[in-house]
């Protein structure tokens, strides 16, 4: 019982790190521009399929494809931000929702066309396949890798946001966009880079999720719910909030699947609805 509990905690935390990578970008961009971007998981899919292509067709090593997944998703985000999103910053929630759902549908169909609807699989290198024995328990190497990646990204992001000039601009824009503009901060530029960074991180998350949860064209829709839960519960524009919410969600989802399999996803949705009713701005949200 106790060792299974530790196993669930470990697996859930690894899963939570994946959710963190997928959702942190959305949380920050939502906080900055109030733009409801439901297509965030489509960016993750861009990264995931970039890794599949690079490994399968060109034979790149797994670790080398990860930065490319980040770059590909980031570039696609910049492109979409410049051409479509930019025009709708002042539009209603509904218009933003519809535009981005449209992009989700298009991306699902496009990837189904080029890659078929089958689950993609990749061959991760040997040192990530096995497992590590410690304290009488078995830890899957890939999940350790996931947790480490998540923590490194968290550290880098916190450093970027708390310690750099760019981070100060982003924080100012999240807190009060009009005031930030008044002080001469180029909010649009800061937003573009944040958006690209968020999209890129989602792409990295997408690439890492192939081995853990699989990748098929419906990824953009099926993980959207989880990402939105993380954002809504963690609070807009909060990196620490996203991290906490993603960890809690990952662990409770794993625990639910392990201890109450008959409940299905019911538990997760119930927790989300209850949390939202209690704190509509999220656990760590400011607004």
């Amino acid at each position, binding site marked *: 019982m106790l060792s299974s509990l530790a196993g669930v905690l470990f697996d859930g935390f690894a899963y939570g790190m994946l959710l963190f990578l997928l959702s942190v970008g959305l949380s920050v961009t939502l906080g900055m521009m109030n733009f409801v971007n439901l297509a965030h998981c489509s960016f993750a899919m861009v990264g995931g399929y970039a890794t599949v292509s690079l490994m399968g067709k060109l034979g790149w090593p797994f670790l080398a494809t990860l930065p490319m997944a980040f770059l590909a998703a980031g570039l696609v985000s910049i492109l979409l931000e410049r051409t479509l999103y930019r025009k709708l910053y002042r539009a209603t929630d509904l218009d933003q929702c519809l*535009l981005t759902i*449209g*992009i989700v549908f298009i991306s699902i169909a496009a990837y189904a066309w080029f890659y078929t609807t089958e689950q993609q699989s990749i061959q991760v290198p040997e040192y990530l396949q096995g497992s590590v024995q410690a304290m009488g328990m078995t830890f899957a190497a890939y999940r350790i890798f996931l947790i480490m990646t998540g923590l490194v990204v968290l550290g880098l992001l916190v450093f970027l946001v708390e310690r750099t000039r760019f981070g100060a601009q982003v924080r100012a824009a999240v807190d009060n966009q009009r005031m930030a503009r008044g002080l001469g901060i180029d909010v649009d530029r800061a937003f573009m880079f944040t958006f690209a960074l968020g999209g890129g991180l989602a792409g990295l998350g997408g690439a890492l999720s192939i081995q853990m949860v699989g990748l098929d064209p419906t990824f953009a829709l099926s993980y959207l719910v989880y990402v939105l*839960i993380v954002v809504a519960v963690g609070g807009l524009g909060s990196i620490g909030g996203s991290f906490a919410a993603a960890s809690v969600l990952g662990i409770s989802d794993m625990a639910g699947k392990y201890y109450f399999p008959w409940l299905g996803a019911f538990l997760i949705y119930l927790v989300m609805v209850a949390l939202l009713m209690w704190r509509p*701005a999220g656990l760590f949200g400011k607004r």
Partner: protein
Amino acid sequence: MRWHPLEIVFWLCTLLPFVVTPNYLSLASQIAITALFALSLDLILGYAGIVSLGHAAFFGVGAYTAGLLAKHYWSEPLTGLVLAALAAGLVGYATSHIIVRFRHLALIMLTMGFGLLLHEAANSASGLTGGADGLQGFKVPAVLGFRFDMFGRAAYAYSLLILFACFLVARRIVNSPFGLALRGIRENALRMPAIGAPSRAHLRKAYTIAAVMAGIAGAVLTHTTSTVSLETLSFGRSADVLVILILGGAGRLYGGIIGAIIYMVARDQFSGLNPQYWYFWIGLLLVTVVMFLPNGILGGFARFFPRKT
């Protein structure tokens, strides 16, 4: 509010499928049901400004209520319709108290959350609902003395009649002072109480009415097809009806109906297409509508034919 001649022509045209395309009557009744569902969403989204990504919850509650009644108790459809409307209305009224407190992302998430919760609940309670297999093994023989047959004449007449009745109610609501107040709340929810329209109470009423109509639509689907599938509660159905309404034009009574006709006919024509690719065109359509036709097809028409005042 007087009837515009075009409106009368439109409703006369809805009788055409009986004589012109008798082979497509079951599609026509599907369209009527979808149009009713879109009309119910229009009341809260188009007029009251509540963005809902979980409207299928009420459609499903109505469908399952009607199905369970027909399976375990009696198969008379009209009382089933009333009870389904009542059940959906109750669920709508209960959730409306929560819904009206929230706006923006939290609102979208909550409506979606309730929809997903009901979907999961129906999936888990497979003893009652049949789970993923759906509810089967019942038959609604006739309505008002007309037998449901394989040609779908009675089915279409029934769906059309219910659609028209609900449309009359919606038309009356929209043109009443209450409807005007709803539009005011949509534009500015804080200012309306100052001129004597209690925002939250009005929104609760509108939400409940919309839930009742969606429940009726679900019940009609159950009666005409004699099955209830889990799909009636799915997120996909909520998203589809949103697309339909936006395509036709939200905030216009005929928006949902026009959207339903175009969407369902197109889907029927392209049914040979893999559903994956069907969604590509829907996505492209959505992006185009949002970028270039912000008020849907009817809004686009209205721009070319400005109303004389």
